[in-house]
């Protein structure tokens, strides 16, 4: 457990003040949170999540989407899909949110040094991967080719579009974006994100892949990566299960013999392959 979690009781939410709200898409928003009581430095690893508590409504796991190199705030990007996320969507600057964490395993960003890195993601799945991308970019020369393959439902649903454009313009990584549905006004690619994998400029035998998105998308993405020759042990996926405690006590997020909150959410694919396709474990 890292520094921030060690300082506090992991079951007691710390109050954080909303410093900034950014509307990203019609149903997706980013909150910048700062400690409400006393200033302290915040550290986390890319891929970890916090339990966010909307007082009087409920508590949910949300991945951290900010830059791990920036230690004075935490950033979360959330899609409003239900009770708690909709309540959060209505909150404004200055309001308080409870935070427990950071929890869970991280993308193996440092272990990937010396290899090509392939990031395959779709929809809101780009948010939990953004900290990994920041960390890779901060140490770009340590990696081989870096490819980001991102899929969204329509051009209007492309998350962090400006940043994707900026990364594409930097010439030191391949950024490919595709959408499932579009009209003739869209000048980019149309088709499933897995199609991008077949054409990606990476050496499958020296590649570490990070995959995050809806589970169906991840299954097909992993299949295609394996078909291209990437080993299952070098493919990492981030899984989602309903959570309560977030720290391995309650069993709510159990997946076979693992707890997604403690043993995950990021798993090497070979560790979860047998459970990946089985619904409702």
């Amino acid at each position, binding site marked *: 457990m890292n520094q921030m979690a060690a300082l506090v009781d992991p079951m007691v939410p710390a109050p954080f003040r909303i410093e900034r709200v950014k509307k990203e898409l019609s149903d997706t928003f980013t909150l910048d949170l700062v400690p409400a009581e006393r200033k302290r430095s915040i550290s986390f690893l890319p891929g970890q999540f916090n339990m966010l508590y909307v007082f009087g409504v409920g508590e949910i796991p949300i991945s951290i989407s900010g830059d791990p190199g920036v230690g004075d705030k935490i950033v979360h990007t959330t*899609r409003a*899909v239900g009770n708690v996320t909709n309540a959060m969507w209505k909150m404004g600057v200055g309001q308080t949110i409870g935070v427990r964490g950071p929890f869970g395993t991280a993308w193996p960003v440092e272990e990937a040094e010396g290899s090509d890195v392939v990031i395959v993601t*779709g*929809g*809101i799945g780009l948010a939990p991967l953004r900290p990994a991308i920041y960390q890779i970019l901060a140490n770009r020369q340590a990696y081989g080719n870096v490819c980001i393959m991102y*899929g*969204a*439902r329509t051009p209007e*649903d492309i998350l962090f579009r400006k940043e994707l454009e900026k990364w594409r313009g930097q010439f030191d990584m391949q950024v490919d974006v*595709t959408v*499932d*549905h*579009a*009209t*003739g*006004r*869209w*000048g*980019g*690619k*149309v*088709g*499933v994100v*897995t*199609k991008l994998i077949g*054409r990606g400029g990476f050496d499958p035998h020296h590649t570490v892949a990070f995959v995050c*998105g*809806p589970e*169906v*998308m991840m299954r*097909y993405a992993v299949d295609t990566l394996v078909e291209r020759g990437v080993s299952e042990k070098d493919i990492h996926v981030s899984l989602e299960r309903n959570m309560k405690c977030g720290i391995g006590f309650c069993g709510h997020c159990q997946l076979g013999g693992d707890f997604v909150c403690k043993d995950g959410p990021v798993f090497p694919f070979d560790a979860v392959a047998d459970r990946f396709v089985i619904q409702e474990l």
Partner: protein
Amino acid sequence: MVQDMGLDKLIRDHPFFEGMDDEALELIAGCAANERFDAGQYVFREGQPADKFYMVRHGSVALEVRAPGRDSIVLQTCDDGDVMGWSWIVPPFRWKWDARATRLSRLVSFDAICLRGKLDADPALGYAMYKRFVRVIAERLAHARLQMIDLYGIGKE
């Protein structure tokens, strides 16, 4: 007869033709030509005779359906390396959609009339080609299904 050594090599190196013998490749290359389309230019239009199929060298071609009174709907784009079009092997040999270059695109076209004759006359070659197209069609079908299931939806709309 091989029209263009560059073209011959391109065909030989393309994964679609992997495993084909030299004689077959030479026959196929004999039906091939380079074509260039500017952004916005149509490669083919719905209803026209499907007398070619294509391989995208560089660029992007949108397969789209025209819808009166609204913007056209793009079904998919064919990008670098993609093989495009199979209406040439399915009667009545007419294109089902429009294909429009979304940027400057260089394609290799294969003359279907020339090819159909060769495939009919040589069943082994016909089988080898059909096998490859079935793979492309199956992949497109799988992708179309994934596009259809609204992967990124919230699951209960």
